């Protein structure tokens, strides 16, 4: 029933899929983190405009499914912009804006959780607001962000599997293609599952290590 020897011949295709999964995850989450920092700080900003924009972004993204976001960006958006994105770029955009909204909430929560005496201590020493954020608040908040960020990274990596619907040649897309053309669904989907598991488990270990290395 189980015939893994047949998987070997498809390893190059699965490798390609893995490459795109990792590419989209890494680039998407990097941009997502930047978006999350920008809009997370926006949600606690005293600037009305900045804070409203940030809230709207977070609510819209949290309130709609990733799958719908992917379809919308790949099929609907070009109707407005008259510009066809290739599927990989679209995939990165989807992961970035989707994770960005959740990361914004993580950033907001972490920054909010830092005692306000820290800001006051920084300001009373003559550091300006930006310097206090950068040297005092942010490093402490960052440590608190690591566990929920890890969680979000894992969710987003798994979400990339949905991008097969917009023809991103990632792991799931390759798996589906091979499975349906060669009738080895069991072996291929098991292998694909193991690939995801290995990525996410390694990430977990890496994050745990990072957290431990921060001494404070």
């Amino acid at each position, binding site marked *: 029933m189980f015939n893994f020897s047949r998987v070997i011949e498809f390893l190059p295709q699965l490798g390609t899929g893995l490459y795109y999964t990792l590419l989209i995850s890494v680039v998407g989450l990097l941009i997502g983190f930047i978006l999350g920092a920008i809009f997370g700080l926006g949600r606690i900003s005293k600037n009305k405009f900045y804070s409203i924009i940030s809230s709207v972004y977070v609510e819209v993204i949290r309130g709609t499914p990733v799958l719908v976001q992917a379809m919308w960006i790949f099929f609907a958006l070009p109707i407005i912009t008259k510009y066809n994105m290739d599927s990989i770029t679209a995939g990165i955009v989807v992961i970035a804006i989707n994770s960005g909204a959740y990361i914004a909430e993580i950033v907001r929560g972490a920054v909010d959780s830092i*005692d306000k*005496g*820290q800001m*006051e*201590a*920084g*300001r*009373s*020493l*003559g*550091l*300006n607001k930006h*310097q206090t954020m950068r*040297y*005092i608040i942010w*490093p*402490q908040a960052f*440590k608190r962000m690591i566990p929920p960020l890890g969680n979000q990274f894992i969710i987003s990596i798994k979400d990339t599997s949905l991008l097969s619907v917009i023809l991103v040649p990632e792991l799931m897309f390759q798996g589906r293609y091979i499975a349906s053309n060669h009738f080895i669904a069991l072996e291929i989907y098991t292998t694909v599952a193991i690939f995801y598991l290995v990525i996410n488990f390694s990430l977990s270990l890496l994050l745990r290590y990072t957290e431990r290395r*921060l*001494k*404070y």
Partner: protein
Amino acid sequence: MITVQDLHKSFGDNEVLKGINCEVEEKEVVCVIGPSGSGKSTFLRCLNLLEDITSGDVIVDGYNLKDRTTDINMIRTEVGMVFQQFNLFPHKTVIENVMLAPRKVRKISVQEARERGEALLEKVGLAEKADQYPAQLSGGQQQRVAIARALAMEPKLMLFDEPTSALDPELVGEVLEVMKQLAKEGMTMVVVTHEMGFAREVADRVLFMDEGIIMEENTPEVIFTNPNSERTKNFLNKVL
């Protein structure tokens, strides 16, 4: 050094400071006493604009804090502040706590900041703790580091908001010792405190605050032996 004229401060509808007038001269040590909720902390925090001023004038070192042209970050480098809860930076070692502001605000070199920091830690008796994190220190030690951190900016004036109130009784003395030393060296200080012994010994002047105004302002001898105001008398009877 400080002139406060008709300072009012409200939080929403709650008027906390109801017209404060006072002067602090250079090298003077002024202690502020009074019941909880009387506005002592708020008053102190108005002196470096941690609270914005509702109305009135606060003039520090010749700069009116209300003027738009006054650079508040520059003023704050001249005004050190020590908090009840220490507020050390937990992610930085003791020496890094002390070095941060001189490095980033005064832009002095690492070398110079470290030398200055080590000298200050020596002064507060914590030279050997330089590379530890705040969490590894006792409350009294943390507060002494906080004092060193404020002094690292070479301020002209130090504000203390109940610096010993969060400490176990046996640790109060070591912090007060450091403050006494500072006073002796001629630092201008405004100290909100419940340590009447300290106020009596070190203060040049004592302000008694009640319900958002300065009820009485006098030398410690007068305040503690023969206060003018009935309110002061009642308060001191309760705390002494």
